[in-house]
């Protein structure tokens, strides 16, 4: 039976932190640690979760946790794993929580190396679609059209010109033992994936969408709702990669309105109907590819 609210560890391992009210990333970290339990060792690079979790003497992690260099999440995870293994300790899970910038831009080579060595680590990327901790700069996981401080919206250029990189498929292309995408809007699905990953030996990668109310321009109580809507409208999808094949966990029969999803966020408010059409077209193209290559669960 998969894990649920009743069977989940009642202990809080991420508590009293200084994340903004309604932070999606902190929810992802909190839930993942509750699934993994006190024998997990968390590694956090520069980014929101290390900035809000370690304000000495306020130390918000109830388990062992350590800050790594920005680029070195995966290499420090390897070190934690190798060090404890050398001491004969086996009942632990080394888990990394890096943001989208720390994963897809700065930490990509370290992650690639760890997957290549197939070290027994779990890497969780909480994707809030920009460098939120430093004040909203574009990362390679920022979606098309989003306004950030480095991709401002003006008369000629309307926000980010590039499409979001598909980090999940990049991780899968290494032939990783387990990779998955998730959303904090579907928390039971996320919990089940973290639990499944913790039982697989080898490198695991989970990419979880974690909206940032500050950077996305939504109210703090809408974080979970918008994380659900991004899946329902087809701009994000819940999938798994295992034993060399892709599996889609949720195939909406009919997508909800992309325009509604876009219009409720401050970062997209400059977009015109033409831009929204570009977004819808790229979504349809992606789903065409998904229907061809992914199997339905």
């Amino acid at each position, binding site marked *: 039976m998969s894990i649920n*609210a*009743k069977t*989940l560890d*009642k*202990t*809080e*391992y*991420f*508590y*009293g*932190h*200084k*994340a*903004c*009210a*309604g*932070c*999606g990333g*902190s*929810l992802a970290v*909190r*839930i993942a640690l509750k699934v993994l339990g006190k024998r997990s060792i968390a590694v956090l690079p520069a980014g929101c979760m290390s900035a809000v979790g370690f304000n*000495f*003497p*306020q*130390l*918000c*992690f*109830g*388990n*062992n*946790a*350590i800050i790594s260099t920005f680029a070195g999440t995966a290499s420090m995870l390897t070190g934690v794993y190798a060090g404890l293994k050398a001491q004969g300790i086996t009942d632990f899970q080394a888990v990394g929580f890096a943001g989208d910038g720390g994963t897809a831009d700065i930490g990509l080579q370290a992650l690639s190396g760890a997957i290549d060595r197939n070290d027994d680590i779990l890497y969780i990327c909480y994707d809030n679609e920009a460098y939120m901790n430093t004040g909203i700069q574009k990362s390679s996981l920022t979606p098309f059209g989003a306004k950030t401080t480095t991709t401002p919206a003006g008369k000629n250029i309307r926000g980010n010109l590039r499409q979001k990189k598909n980090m999940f498929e990049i991780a899968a292309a290494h032939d990783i033992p387990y990779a998955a995408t998730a959303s904090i809007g579907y*928390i039971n699905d996320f919990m089940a994936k973290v639990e499944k990953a913790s039982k697989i030996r080898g490198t695991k990668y989970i990419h979880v969408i974690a909206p940032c*109310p500050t950077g996305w321009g939504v*109210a*703090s*109580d*809408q*974080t*979970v*709702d918008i994380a659900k809507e991004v899946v329902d409208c087809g701009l994000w999808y819940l999938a798994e990669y295992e034993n060399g094949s892709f599996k889609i966990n949720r195939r909406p029969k009919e997508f909800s309105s992309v325009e509604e999803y876009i219009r409720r966020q401050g970062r997209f408010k400059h977009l015109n109907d033409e831009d929204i059409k570009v977004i819808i077209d790229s979504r349809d193209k992606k789903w065409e590819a998904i229907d061809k290559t992914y199997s339905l669960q």
Partner: protein
Amino acid sequence: MRPYLREKIPSSIDEIPSATAYEAGYLVTKNSGWRNVRPVIDTATCVGCQNCYLYCPDGVISIEDGKAKIDYDFCKGCGICRTVCKPGAIRMEAEK
């Protein structure tokens, strides 16, 4: 069990660790001052479904005797609990 608020706040230089390790879950400040609105649970309507407990980014909600209970020391008043509460047992009240 959660990390809890400690009475002793390290203040002098010899109380600060010289190595890289310090006790996990050592809390010295509350977050309650961040709040403009506070969630209030109507225990008569609450069915103890645990949705608010599950989705709270700060983990301040626990279920005690089948009803949700909030730790106001660390609640930031984001209102996610109210949004995810299906029976509508949570209302937001302005902080005075």
